[in-house]
C-alpha cells in the first residue's frame, strides 16, 4: 500500500447532534481527530453507530456539522473516494464470491485495475483461500474481513469501522490490529467503535468515550485509563474480624467510609489504586486475616457513568 493522497486525513464533529423524534441519540458532540488510530469507546446504545453513520453520510445530522477531509458526507457521495466504511451489520451480497464483491467495490471506485486492487485487498485481510467461495458460506469472521477488504480496496485516507472485531478469533484479531496499525503509520485516520476496553487498550492511541449520546472523555489512552481507575470505588472485603478491620480502615485518609453488612465489609475509597496499596498493610497492622477483597462496581457501564457525571 502506498501513502494516501488527496484530502487531509481529518475527521471533525462540530457540535453535532442527532435525534429520532423525541429520542436524542447523539447530543452536542464535538471532536477532531487526524492521522492515527482513534477509538470510539462506549457501552452498547451509547450512540457510537449514530456518530459513525453521520460521519459516513448515512445519517443527516440534526444539528451541527460533520466533516471528512473538510467535506460534509451527507448527500455528497464524492467523499467515498477517500473514505472507507466497515458497517457493523453483517449483510453483504451473499450470492457473490469474496473476490467478486471486492472487485465490485474496486470497479465502483473506478480504479484503473480492479482485479489487481481486489487481489491486494484480499491478501491484506488474509482471505485468499476463501476468495473463490460465495459470501453466503462465510463465517462471521470471514464476513468481517471481506467487508474490510471492500472498504480499503481504494486505499482510503479515512477508514471508519463499526465494531470491527466482532466475530473474530484471537489470531484474526491480532492480524487486524497489525493491519490497522500499519495503515495508521502511513498517515491514515482510522476511527473504530468498540464496547470492549481490552480492544481499545491494544490498539488506540486516542480514545473518545461516548456515553448516553455525549462525549464523556477524550484524550490519550493512558490518561483515560487513569481517569477510569482513579475514581471513587467501593470494595467488598471479607476477613477474620470485619469490625476491627473497619476501625483500622477508617483511620486511613484514603477511606471515606466503611460499613458492616451480612458478614461483609463495604469500604468506600477515594481511588482504586490508593486502596489496593494500603489494604494489605492495614490488615497486617490490625492482625486481621483477609479472605477476599473485590471491587464492586468495575463494570464498564459504571465507569462510563462516572466519566459522564464528571463533566
Amino acid at each position: 500500500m502506498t501513502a494516501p493522497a488527496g484530502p487531509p486525513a481529518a475527521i471533525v464533529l462540530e457540535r453535532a447532534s442527532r435525534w429520532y423524534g423525541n429520542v436524542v441519540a447523539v447530543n452536542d458532540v464535538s471532536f477532531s481527530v487526524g492521522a492515527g488510530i482513534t477509538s470510539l469507546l462506549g457501552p452498547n446504545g451509547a450512540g457510537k453507530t449514530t456518530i459513525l453513520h453521520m460521519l459516513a453520510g448515512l445519517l443527516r445530522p440534526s444539528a451541527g456539522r460533520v466533516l471528512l477531509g473538510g467535506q460534509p458526507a451527507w448527500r455528497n457521495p464524492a467523499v467515498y473516494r477517500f473514505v472507507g466504511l466497515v458497517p457493523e451489520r453483517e449483510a453483504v451480497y451473499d450470492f457473490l464470491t469474496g473476490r467478486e464483491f471486492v472487485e465490485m467495490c474496486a470497479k465502483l471506485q473506478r480504479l484503473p485495475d480492479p482485479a489487481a486492487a481486489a487481489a491486494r485487498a484480499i491478501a491484506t485481510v488474509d482471505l485468499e483461500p476463501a476468495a473463490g467461495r460465495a459470501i453466503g458460506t462465510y463465517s462471521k469472521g470471514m464476513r468481517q474481513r471481506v467487508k474490510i477488504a471492500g472498504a480499503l480496496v481504494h486505499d482510503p485516507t479515512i477508514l471508519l469501522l463499526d465494531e470491527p472485531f466482532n466475530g473474530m478469533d484471537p489470531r484474526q484479531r491480532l492480524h487486524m490490529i497489525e493491519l490497522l496499525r500499519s495503515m495508521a503509520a502511513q498517515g491514515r485516520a482510522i476511527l473504530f467503535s468498540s464496547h470492549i476496553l481490552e480492544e481499545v487498550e491494544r490498539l488506540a492511541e486516542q480514545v473518545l468515550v461516548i456515553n448516553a449520546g455525549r462525549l464523556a472523555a477524550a484524550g490519550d489512552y493512558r490518561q483515560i485509563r487513569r481517569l477510569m481507575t482513579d475514581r471513587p470505588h467501593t470494595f467488598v472485603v471479607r476477613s477474620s474480624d470485619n469490625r476491627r478491620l473497619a476501625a483500622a480502615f477508617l483511620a486511613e485518609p484514603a477511606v471515606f467510609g466503611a460499613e458492616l453488612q451480612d458478614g461483609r465489609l463495604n469500604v468506600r475509597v477515594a481511588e482504586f489504586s490508593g486502596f489496593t496499596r494500603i489494604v494489605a498493610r492495614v490488615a497486617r497492622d490490625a492482625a486481621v486475616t483477609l479472605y477476599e477483597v473485590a471491587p464492586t462496581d468495575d463494570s464498564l457501564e459504571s465507569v462510563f457513568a462516572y466519566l459522564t457525571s464528571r463533566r
Partner: protein
Amino acid sequence: MTIFPEVARVTLRALVGRRRTVLMLLLAGVPILVGLLVRANSDGIAEVGPTLDGLVVRIILPLVALVFGTAALGSELEDGSAVHLLTKPISRTTIVLAKVAVAGTLTAALTVPSTIVTAILLAEPGADVVGITVSLGIGVFAGSYLYASIFAALSILTSRGLLLGLGYALIWEGLLAGLLPGTQVFSVREYVRGIVHLVSPSVIDSVVGNAAVPYAAIALVAALAIASYRLATYEVRGSD
C-alpha cells in the same frame, strides 16, 4: 461509464437464479396455459386484446413487476447490504436507473413472450395476428418498465413496499381504476391499453387514447425522480 453496467450486473445476479425467478416463470406461464386450454377446445376467440388486458396487463404484469421492482433495491436496503453500494462515489440516480433497468428488463423478458405466445394461441383464424402481437408486446414492454420504476420507488419510500405495492396493484389497478370513470388517468393499466390502441386501434379500445404516451412518460420520470431523491437522502439507522 462503467458504473451503470456494474450495478446492473450485480443486480441481475441478485435477482435471477433463485426461487423467486422460478415462481415468476410459473406466473408468466399461466396465460400460456390458458391459451393452450382455449386452443384445445376451440379455434380461438375474437376478443384477444381485452382478454390479455384482463389476464396479463391487469394481474400478471403488475405482480411480476412488483416482485422484481421491490427486490431490486428494497430487499438490500432492508437487510443492510445496500450500505456497501451507498458508500461508493457514485450518484444515487445511477443506482436507481440501473436497478430499474434490470427489474424492468426481467419483467419484460417474462411477460412480453408470455403475452405474444398467448395472443398467438388465442387468435382465431383470419385474425390480424401481427397487429395483435406487436401492439400487445409493445404495450406490455412499456408497462414492464413503468411498473418496475413505480415499485422500486415504493420500496425505497417504505419498508413495506411489497405489501403496499400488492394493495396498489390489486385494489387500484385491478379494481377501482377499471370501474370508476376519471380514475383511468392515473392508471398504468390504462396507459398500457392506450399504447396498444395507438399501435393497433382494433385490438383494444382506450379511454385515455393518445394521451397515454405523455401520461406514461410523466409517471415514469416522476417515479424515477422520487426514487432518486429518496435514495440520495436515505438514512441508515444503526442498532444504537
